[in-house]
């Protein structure tokens, strides 16, 4: 983050700071994957393919906004319910929109409200009952899955509004689909909010030292709760966009996104213990993960080796900058 905040003074130390910055490393890895992909299977680095991959990354990226905030807010923060919440958001949205543009707005608002309630429950359990976030959100995963099942009766119905499908699937300016612009706007907005709003600074304060934050008059619990609310809200938003991608919804649409959101945050250089990092890194982390998945699937590598490779890549990246403090200092 430091590299981003300070004016670029081209001294050696400054350069070293930039080169060892997780964001730089992650971005370099993302570029490297595209280059390797282009060498291994020509066409992988083509403009339209890269745009296509960025589009796919946007779903993960948007769901990871909340995960970033939750992890930044510290206290072993993590939200394991994002995948299920995103799925529920998409299910509710599909049912409300039901293929009609006139209900688009309602179809976005209601799921977002549903998400806010889920996040509120997570936040209250974590802030007031002081249930460890890992356990609380893991438990909520079961609850949200249950809600989705009870709500749909086992078969999700409805369809995305055409405008939403168009936003995600139709190419717009520079052949780039609208969803990518939405994501870019969100990257700018979230990064800006984290750096330039009172709420954002308070998240960093709470994440880096809760005792000091409390003693400085920062409302710790309120910030923690808001982080989880934001997480579920962005999860639902991501789910809604995913609905636009597939047009119709199914019961495990976004379930598999949970752990990748955490991975994207960590690859993006946000400290797992909170207080340091930001959304730009996460967005690049989402690109890295998506590019990697795409590369491995076009390389005709069997599923087994693809799984192994992605695990190893994650470990190597973490080894480069995710190490914890030594005991003997």
């Amino acid at each position, binding site marked *: 983050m*430091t590299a981003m905040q300070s004016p670029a003074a081209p001294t050696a130390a400054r350069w070293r700071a930039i080169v060892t910055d997780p964001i730089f490393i992650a971005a370099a890895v993302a570029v490297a994957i595209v280059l390797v992909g282009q060498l291994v299977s020509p066409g992988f680095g083509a403009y339209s393919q890269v745009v296509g991959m960025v589009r796919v990354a946007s779903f993960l990226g948007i769901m990871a906004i909340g995960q970033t905030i939750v992890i930044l807010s510290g206290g072993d923060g993590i939200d394991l319910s994002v995948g299920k919440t995103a799925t529920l958001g998409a299910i509710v949205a599909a049912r409300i929109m039901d293929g009609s543009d006139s209900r688009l707005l309602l179809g976005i608002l209601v799921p977002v409200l549903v998400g806010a309630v889920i996040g509120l429950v997570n936040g209250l359990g974590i802030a007031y009952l002081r249930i460890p976030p890992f356990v609380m959100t893991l438990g909520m995963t079961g609850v949200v899955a249950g809600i989705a099942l009870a709500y749909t009766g086992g078969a999700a119905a409805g369809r995305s509004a055409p405008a939403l499908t168009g936003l995600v699937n139709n190419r717009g300016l520079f052949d780039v689909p609208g969803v990518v612009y939405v994501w870019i706007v969100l990257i700018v907005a979230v990064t800006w909010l984290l750096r330039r709003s009172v709420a954002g600074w308070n998240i*960093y*304060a709470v994440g880096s*030292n809760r005792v*000091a*934050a*409390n003693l400085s008059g*920062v409302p710790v619990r309120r910030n923690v709760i808001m982080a989880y609310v934001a997480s579920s809200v962005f999860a639902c938003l991501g789910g809604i966009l995913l609905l636009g991608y597939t047009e119709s919804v199914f019961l495990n649409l976004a379930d598999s996104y949970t752990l990748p959101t955490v991975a994207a945050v960590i690859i993006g250089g946000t400290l797992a213990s909170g207080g340091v990092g930001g959304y730009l890194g996460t967005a690049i982390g989402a690109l890295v993960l998506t590019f990697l998945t795409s590369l491995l699937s076009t390389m005709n590598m069997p599923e087994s080796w693809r799984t192994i490779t992605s695990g190893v890549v994650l470990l190597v990246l973490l080894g480069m900058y995710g190490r914890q403090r030594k005991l003997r*200092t």
Partner: protein
Amino acid sequence: MASLDITGVDKRYGGVQALKGASLSVAEGEVHGLLGPNGSGKSTLNKVMAGAVRPDAATIRLDGQDLRIHGPQDAHHHRIESVYQQLSLIPHLTVAENLVLGTEAARAGWLTPKAQLVEVDAMLERLSPVLGGGIGPRTRVGSLNPGTKQLLEFAKVVLRRPRFLVLDEATASLHRDQVALLFAMVRELTAEGVGVVFVSHRMEEVLDLCDRATIIRNGLNVATVDVKDTDEQELVRLMVGDLARAAGRGERPAPSRDGQPVLSVRGLQAEGLADVSLDVHPGEIVGLGGLQGQGQSELLTGIFGASPAQAERIEVAGDPVEFRNPRSAIAAGLALVPGDRASEGLYSVRSIQENISTVTLGRRARAGLVIDARAEKEAATSQVDALRIKIGALADAVSTLSGGNAQKVVVAKWLLSEPRIVLLDDPTKGVDVGAKAEIYAIIRDLTAQGVGVILNSSDDVELAELADRVLVLYEGRIVQELEGTDVTHDNLVAAALRISDDDTKES
């Protein structure tokens, strides 16, 4: 005669040089005092011996042989054992489990506790008169009081049969009779030829127990003396250097105490505090004295709404207030510079700018929401300039700063809130001399503006220099009040040790 010699120890933490070629030599059978003001590097030196800290440079010799100590286990291998200032008991384990931790008897990995339990029982039996009731080998350690824990820590190390024993502030939380027992046991050990390094802030303990003493200051050796040939004044002089002499009462006129107090507390109760009442007048510095850990910090956090406390009445400038949390206290014009800078005062991984801004962020923000980057920068810069904080850039993490500058950042964030009452909990702990003087100047400036200050300090020299009045606490109560010219170093030491009654000195 066998001895443990450690020489040429250098250790740097970030921007702070904790040790610069310090050395220490302990002979078999002696108790060797290690003295120095706070932050002089005593604990770091001890930890180097214990293997808990990796020195930048050091030579350790045992009986003339070079030793390599890469970790606590290496030290243990040479039977060098330490009681750290920060206790190393595991809260969820029992007393017996803690006492043998790391040295459990085992056959092929399976615990064979019987023989050891006999030793543990014997040790607990020995300690039992001063240990408090109901503590047995199967008691869990977590809920025990600090004194008991400290004794157990000592017992744990003694059970390891040390040849050399480091006791770093091992008596800080102990009662008088507990200290007496510990001393008796130390003397038994030295009689058996054990060499002991003894660190304590209580001069009379050093004079009582030690044969020799090494004094370090700012990471450098000052002197090694035979305790028999010296006295308390001399030791204090060596420890604090010229500072003690130079410390005057400052130029400040004594504040008036006629008007309405800016802060008035009646009947404050909390854990570790019993029925404390006090008044602070505008421009007044009220010191909190006594041995540390007698409720001073609890009093400050209790007033500030940061820890559960009930008061009959708290008034700020005559208005009754009730602080449920620090936020309400801040709104009423209070500020707290907490005792543990790193864990309570700073966001160490965040920038200096953010640390300075945190309390007053909402005031400068547009509509209370959006940060005005220029206003933030100006505010922080003004504080950095005013307090002469030495920084690289405002965007640098606060962890890059030295102790004194970091503390100034804590102070700076409060100055921006323009407080009416400032609560300072040991504000110069681990701060070097120069920065200390600057912090004193800041405190005096505040009082000149009519701010009321409560200052808790572990440094009696500091209280003597700054405080208009000192409330001496003992076991959570105000037991004595020193005022005006009575606030002297000697009186403070006397009051802290509660020897004034016996010595029939002035009070």
